[in-house]
Each structure stands twice: as C-alpha cells, then as structure tokens.
C-alpha cells in the first residue's frame, strides 16, 4: 500500500520552476530516497508534502489525506528533520523534546518515557540537560532525529540528515536511520546528494531541475550505469581471464596490467567468488562503485554540478552575534 502518493506535482516560484510535474508512490514501511544535486527541488517537494508550501498544481496525498486541504490530518502523521537545523539552541536537549511533546499532545504520563527512549536511541540521554548550543553539529543532527520520532510519526522526512557531518557520524546516523522502519514502524522519505547513502533505500528517485529522471531500487539504478566494476591483479592475467569467463561467465579484459570486469551487479559479493575460483593467483582486488555522478552522466549527458555546502552556517552565526548586540 502506498502511504505517500504524488501526482504531477508542480511548484513555481515566479519564473523558477522548482518542481516540475513529478509523480511517485512510496510504500508503507519502506525507505524512499530522493537523490539529486543542489537546487533539484528536493526540499521544495518535502515542504509541499509537510504542508509548509502549497503546490502550483498537482496532487499530494499522505496516508490518504490531501496535503493542501487536510493539512491538520497530514501534520499528525509527520515527523521531519529539516535540512537546516530547527532546534532552539538556548534550550536544553530535554526541553527541546519536551516542547515537541506538548505540540504533539503526547499524554502527560508518556512524555518522560518517550523522550528518554528517543534520547537513548541517539545516544544523547546523558547530555539531556545541556543547552543545545553546546552540542556539536553531529549531536544536533542526532537530537533532531530523536525529536522527529518522539511522537511516533507514520512518515518521517529526512532532508539531508547527514549534511555537515564527518564520515564517522554520517555512518553512525545512517545506522540509526536504517533501524527505524523496523523499530518504529515508520516510512522514511529522505533526500541526499550521495549514492552511498541511498544504498539503504528500497527505492530511489533521481531528481534534477525539478524533474524525476529515473526511479527504481539502488540495484536497478546501478545497472543503468553498468553496475560495479572490479579490478584484479593476478600472477597470470591471461589464464585468470580465461578462468573468469569459463567458470563465472563474466566479461573480463586486461587494461594496463589489470583485469577489468565491468557491469557486476553486486561487486562485494562477487569478490570472494572470484578469489575462490582463481585459487591463489590473485595479487590484489579493487572495487569501483558507480557514483551518482555516473548515473547523472548517463541520464543527462553531463556531470553533476560541483557540490557546494548549502548550510549557510556562517551567515547564521553572524546573525546570531548581531542579534546578541541589538536584541535588547
């Protein structure tokens, strides 16, 4: 059953068409990924779905409720981690979640327990009484994830949840997120710039300039660009190639002293098989994954534009110090 259905959704800001007639369905309990470069229209789509913007045309339903006309019904079902931080940094972690519990009318007897669970889930319970302004970027992000699940939403929107995180925090956060559907019975709609991050999705839609240019499972998308590439160095390349063709039925050729195996559907699963069948001829193996860039190149004929940081953190800091000076 699809819990989100979007049909022909369009949003124009003046002359700019941010979202251009997109349609998709999201299955209940699945993880759906929106993959695209800066300015593709990801945040705009989320804003429409979570009732902050009204579409120029088209239809968006969440759990059967129209995002425009039945916004209060829709709002009850949603949890959101916005692209930009939306915590109150003067309040403590606990107070931020408590504020949230009141807004979502969590019964008095359950508030404490739910907040505790959520904070424990993201490993921040020990720091619950600290003001958020003392948290690192990664901790703030985790706290936002905790806040977004306190009220047990049916649908969780994550707009670039790993923005500005170091690789380790990023991995940690994805581990949290991947656990969510099973643990909290929630459907996840996430956006990202990174193909690796989209790996955990059941389905991905690639969006560019407001249009969805491809949809499918991560495997499907990778197959479009030819799948993984495995490079091998062996003691005897000629013999190895013959062996690979014969016993694995894969296409292999030699390039610059390396064996090049293109279009492998599951590279990491292929490696042990290769090593086994080549006995001890293998000297080294390396796996190259198709990137979003490759998908892009394939679909649009041009590389994805260089990524710029879209956080605007410095500007906000400047505003903050300005505010301290003048907000008296």
């Amino acid at each position, binding site marked *: 059953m699809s819990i989100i259905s979007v049909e022909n959704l369009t949003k124009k800001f003046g002359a700019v068409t941010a979202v251009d007639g997109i349609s998709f369905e999201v299955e209940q309990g699945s993880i759906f990924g929106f993959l695209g470069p800066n300015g593709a229209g990801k945040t705009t789509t989320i804003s429409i779905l*979570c*009732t*902050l*913007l*009204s579409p120029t045309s088209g239809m968006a339903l969440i759990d059967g409720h129209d995002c425009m006309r039945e916004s*209060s019904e829709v*709002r*009850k079902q*949603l949890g*959101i981690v*916005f692209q*930009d*931080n*939306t*915590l*109150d*940094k*003067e*309040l403590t972690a606990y*107070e931020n979640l*408590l*504020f*949230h519990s*009141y*807004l*979502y*009318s969590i019964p008095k007897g359950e508030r404490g327990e739910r907040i505790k669970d959520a904070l424990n889930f993201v490993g921040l319970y020990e720091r619950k009484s600290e003001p958020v302004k003392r948290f690192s970027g990664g901790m703030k992000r985790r706290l936002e994830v905790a806040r977004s699940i306190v009220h047990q939403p049916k649908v969780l929107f994550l707009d670039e949840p790993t923005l500005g995180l170091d690789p380790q925090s990023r991995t940690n956060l994805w581990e949290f997120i991947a656990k969510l559907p099973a643990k909290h019975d929630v459907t996840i709609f996430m956006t990202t710039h990174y193909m690796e991050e989209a790996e955990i999705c059941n389905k991905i839609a690639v969006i560019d300039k407001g249009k969805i240019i491809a949809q499918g499972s991560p495997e499907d998308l990778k197959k479009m660009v030819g799948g993984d590439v495995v490079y091998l160095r062996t003691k005897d390349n000629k013999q190895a190639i013959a062996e690979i063709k014969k016993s694995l039925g894969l296409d292999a050729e030699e390039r610059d002293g390396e064996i090049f195996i293109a279009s492998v559907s599951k590279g990491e699963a292929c490696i042990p098989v290769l090593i086994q069948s080549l006995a001890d001829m293998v000297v080294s193996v390396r796996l190259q994954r198709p990137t979003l860039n490759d998908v892009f190149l394939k679909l649009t004929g041009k590389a994805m534009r260089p990524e710029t940081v879209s956080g605007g953190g410095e500007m*906000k800091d400047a*505003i*903050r110090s*300005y*505010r301290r000076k*003048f*907000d*008296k």
Partner: protein
Amino acid sequence: MIRSDLNAIYVIVAREFIKFTRERGRLISTLARPLIWLFLVGGGMSRMVSPDMGVPYIQFIFPGIIGMTILFSSIFSSISIIWDKEFGFMKEMLVAPVSRLSIVVGKALSGTAVSTIQALIILLLFPVIGLKLGIVQVLLILCIAVILSFCLSTLGILIATFYENFESFSVIMNFIVMPMFFLSGAMYPVKRLPHALGLFTRVNPLTYGIDALKYMVLPEKGALSQDFPLSLDITVIVVTSIVFVTIAANVFERRK
C-alpha cells in the same frame, strides 16, 4: 479551543518564560530604557516645566513610562518570531498539528507575561517619585498593563509576519516603535498637540493604553490627566487586539 491548542499555547508561553529567566541581560537592558527616561528626562524636565498644572512632570510621565516599558518589551518579545523564522524554529511549530491561531495566541500571551512583569517592576517605583497609590489602584493598573501588553504583543506579531530577517530590526525600531512612543501622549497631553500630530496619536493603540494608565495614576488632575473616557480606552485596546490576532492568524495560515 481543543486540547492540543491549549497545550501549544501553554508550551509556547513556557518556552518564552524559560528563555526570559535565562537571559538576565535582557531584563536589565529592557528596564534600563524606561529608567533612563523616567529619571534623566523626567527628572530633568521637572526643573524646566513648572508644575502649574497640578502635578510635577516626573509624575505626569510616569504612566507614559509604564506604557513605554510595555511597548518595548511586548514588541521585542513578539519580534522574536523573526528570529524563530531565521533560525528555523518556526518550522518546528508550523508543521505541528496545532492551529495557527494557537501559535499566534501563544506568542501574544508570552509577550503579555514578560512585559507585564517588567511593567510591574517599573510601577513599584511609584513611592520614589512621590506618588501615592493604593493597592486597588496598583491592581487596576496591572489589569490595564495586561490588556495593553496583549494588544501590543499582537501588533508585534503582525509586524513580525511581514519581515523575514534580522535586518528589518532597526527599521521596526526607528520607524514603528519610536514614533509610536512619541505620538502616544506619553510625554505631553494629547489635547495640546497640533491637529495633524493629534491625528496620529488617535490611531495609535498605545495612546489609549497610556490614557487609561493616566486615569489610574493621576485621577482628576485637570489638564494633565486623561484625554478620553476610560471605556473608550478599554474598548479600543480590546478591539484592536482582536483585529490584530485575527489578521496575524490568517497571515500564518497562508502558505506561499
């Protein structure tokens, strides 16, 4: 109102309160302004303006100074909506399953609470400037302070809904808040103003608030006491509050 809206109003006020008690500097600096005006301007002018109209000048401006305290603290409290927008917290409230009206009312009551407290602190200085007020008078002044604070807080919210960022701050200060103060009868009796300026004072809700405060602080003091009947003052304050709240809630409801 339904339960979820009451929850929202409660928690929005609680948040403002927590922040207010944590920012000591904010209380001191908002109290500094009326104190400076009362003692430096009021005290100084008292020597120049002869008290021939029944009361010393410093006592005459006392209701105006209470009005000033309420004006600044209400507007500043409401204008925090602009920071909430700028720092994203507004979105947390807007995606929640609560009515837009409850967000507006919550914000307005936050401003009301914070600015009534500050007005009370200034009010309690009355013995220092030689005024004699009974407990009933003090309570009535507090009631006026509450409705005036609510009215000006809703005005602040309305202003905040039209501004997106912090740059607008000095515009609001210089072109809305300061003129409102000067054209409110705080510093001089409204009936002595030239006609054109008098017109401005008559469309300024603060004028009616200060007028009601004058009625409580300086009853029957001839030319220096109030300019309008108390019932008119209160009607204007209540009606403008309702109008402002309604407009603000509608603006909040609108999506881009």
